[in-house]
């Protein structure tokens, strides 16, 4: 299947809007996760304090990221983990490949990790003939379907159980059933054989503790525990922003993340892994490798607004709360990270050139900021990126010339009362050609071409007309000296 790109966001979105099945699934998502989250946050008294605390821990970490990363790496190494550094996705993929080659390993199980999605690790492995097996149920489904995740937490939310049933019939040869339990048990049965033979397990990391070198991974299914327990070698890919200073800081994040993400008080499993096993006869992998990856993250430190992006704990709450995401889903964003957080992270990770539409794909309503457990001001970030695009701090030569001209004109004329008043008069004259009964109906053809925003507006909505007498005129005649 062809993957959508961010460059065609507008077309992707239109296609998504026409997909009634998708929109049904998204509605279910918004309602279900919205309600579960509300119920879960009601179980803690100091939710707002927790958010503040989490943010200040993240801010403190990011302001001294060099120190905390050093501590994390040193302590993990002391406990027997091997640390690798990757400047970008290419380097991270190369490190993984090298580790696999050295171990002559071809049987790989993977647990869900946005970081590995970000660097397209599976594609890199497949190029060398290695087929890693995704073991998270949702990730496995989309891997079988040859698709990409459409949500950070529930990657296959765009698919119905009927579609999944057909997929299983085709790919794993079961008899058709759209009983969710049967489908789940099928995944269990088949993936167990993969776990049994796996030589290397690859995971992501939710939090890395500087003080102890511990990595924490959260999940519900148990596939992460299997991935990190059964194979001889465990490779964990970790973004450099995942570090937190103290072990007890985990308390705050463990209260915030599950409640925000799935509306649980705690996910079913947490694995806290500090280096390798102490004795060769103990359970678990003989080797633990942690790849610390930058891939555009350190750049985000350069401004306090963009730096907030690195506080994200990937809970997905902003997706569920976003009216835009609720209408179009994740694939339309054409990037690994969809929704509001995706619209701010993607342009920073891959460059603004090909992702220019994303920061504009928001009504700036602020619902994302309201639910964000670490209080990322996503609207502020969107505006920051819009300014970079509009004002040409980055590659923006193709940014619409007509828009620039329009805003230049607007800023000239509307900051001068005499021009502003003249504008009102001209509008009154012009609207005579299009207005009827005090409103402007559907405008098409020549007029819509002449003024595209008017055409876009009136395709579905009537537009108001300029009043016969403006407020300032009424003020002068009726109000001022009353």
């Amino acid at each position, binding site marked *: 299947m062809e993957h959508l790109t961010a460059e065609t966001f507008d077309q992707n979105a239109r296609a998504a809007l026409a997909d009634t099945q998708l929109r049904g699934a998204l509605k279910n998502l918004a309602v279900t996760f919205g309600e579960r989250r509300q119920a879960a946050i009601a179980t803690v008294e100091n939710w707002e304090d927790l958010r503040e605390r989490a943010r200040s821990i993240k801010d403190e970490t990011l302001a001294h990221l*060099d120190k905390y990363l050093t501590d994390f790496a040193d302590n993990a190494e002391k406990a027997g983990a091997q640390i*690798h550094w990757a400047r970008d996705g290419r380097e991270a993929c190369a490190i993984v490949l090298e580790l696999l080659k050295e171990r002559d390993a071809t049987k790989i199980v993977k647990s869900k990790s946005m970081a590995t999605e970000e660097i397209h690790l599976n594609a890199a492995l497949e190029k060398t003939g290695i087929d890693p097996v995704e073991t998270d149920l949702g990730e496995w489904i989309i891997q079988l379907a040859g698709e990409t995740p459409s949500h950070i937490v529930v990657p296959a939310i765009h698919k119905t159980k009927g579609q999944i049933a057909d997929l299983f019939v085709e790919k794993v040869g079961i008899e058709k059933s759209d009983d*969710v339990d049967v489908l789940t048990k099928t995944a269990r049965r088949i993936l167990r054989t993969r776990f049994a033979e796996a030589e290397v397990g690859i995971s992501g990391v939710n939090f890395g503790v500087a003080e102890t070198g511990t990595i924490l991974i959260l999940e519900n299914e148990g596939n992460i525990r299997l991935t990190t327990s059964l194979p001889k070698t465990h490779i964990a890919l970790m973004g450099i922003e995942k570090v937190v200073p103290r072990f007890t800081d*985990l*308390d705050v994040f463990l209260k915030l993340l599950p409640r925000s993400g799935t509306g649980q008080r705690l996910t079913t499993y947490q694995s806290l892994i500090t280096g390798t096993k102490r004795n060769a006869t103990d359970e678990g992998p003989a080797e633990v490798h942690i790849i610390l990856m930058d891939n555009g993250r350190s750049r985000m430190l350069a401004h306090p607004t963009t730096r907030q992006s690195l506080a994200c704990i990937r809970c997905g709450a902003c997706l569920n709360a976003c009216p835009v995401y609720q209408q179009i889903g994740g694939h339309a964003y054409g990037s690994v990270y969809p929704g509001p957080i995706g619209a701010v992270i993607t342009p920073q990770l891959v460059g603004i050139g090909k992702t220019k539409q994303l920061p504009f794909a928001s009504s700036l309503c602020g619902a994302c900021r309201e639910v964000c457990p670490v209080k990322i001001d996503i609207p502020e970030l969107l505006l920051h990126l819009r300014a970079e695009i509009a004002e040409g701090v980055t590659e923006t030569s193709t940014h619409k010339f007509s828009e620039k001209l329009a805003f230049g004109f607007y800023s000239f004329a509307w900051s001068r009362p005499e021009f502003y008043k003249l504008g009102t008069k001209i509008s009154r004259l012009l609207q005579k050609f299009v207005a009827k009964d005090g409103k402007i109906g559907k405008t098409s053809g020549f007029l819509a071409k002449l003024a595209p925003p008017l055409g876009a507006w009136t395709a579905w909505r009537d537009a108001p007309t300029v009043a016969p007498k403006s407020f300032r005129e009424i003020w002068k005649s009726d109000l001022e000296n009353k």
Partner: protein
Amino acid sequence: MNNSEAKSAIFASIRQNLAASLPFDAAHHAHHAPKDSTFTTPVLPELSTENLIENFRKNLESVGGNFSIVYDESEAAEILLMMIGEKKARKIAVSDSPLVEKIVGFLKMDAEFIENASADRLFECDLGITGAQWAIAETGTLVLESESERHRLASLVPPVHVCILEAGQIRQTLGEILELVQQSLSRTITFITGASRTSDIELTLAIGVHGPGELIVILIDKTEEAEN
């Protein structure tokens, strides 16, 4: 792979970008500074063992866990025997916890108890028995430390996980437990809250996707005995 080169490049970039941010930090801080001073951990009343058990039970059951309370190891063995019978379990994976060993020692039955099972044999087990080092009442969570007990696979691979817990191991909050386990940090610590679950298909809850579909906690509360 020249790793030291990558490492120094990343650190240089971190420092350079943080420095570039300095002129903007103050203005941003004025708007967005977290009001950290307001943060207080709610002070909880000292809870009796009875309260802790009750809270733990309630929260464990709210995530679908099964809970029984007994007053000693032999009673625990009786319950265990009943459960093994009910599940018709023939092969049982056990951890190396002395408590589990002791209780399993009481059992007179022809099921096979396997300690330190290989991966292949684990996949054939019908049930896994472990102890736990701690439990968190506020979430109904079991906490298992690798250096106290060989728990990682026995608690995960078989379709049913039975955990034998002692009343004194329960604490009310996650925060208390993090402080406790940090004192001598095991290489792997596992938190378990309920049975393995997924909502990946249409957000419909399905139990037992990769881990156990059933979690059974048998709590030994010896104060019960004293009172009896």
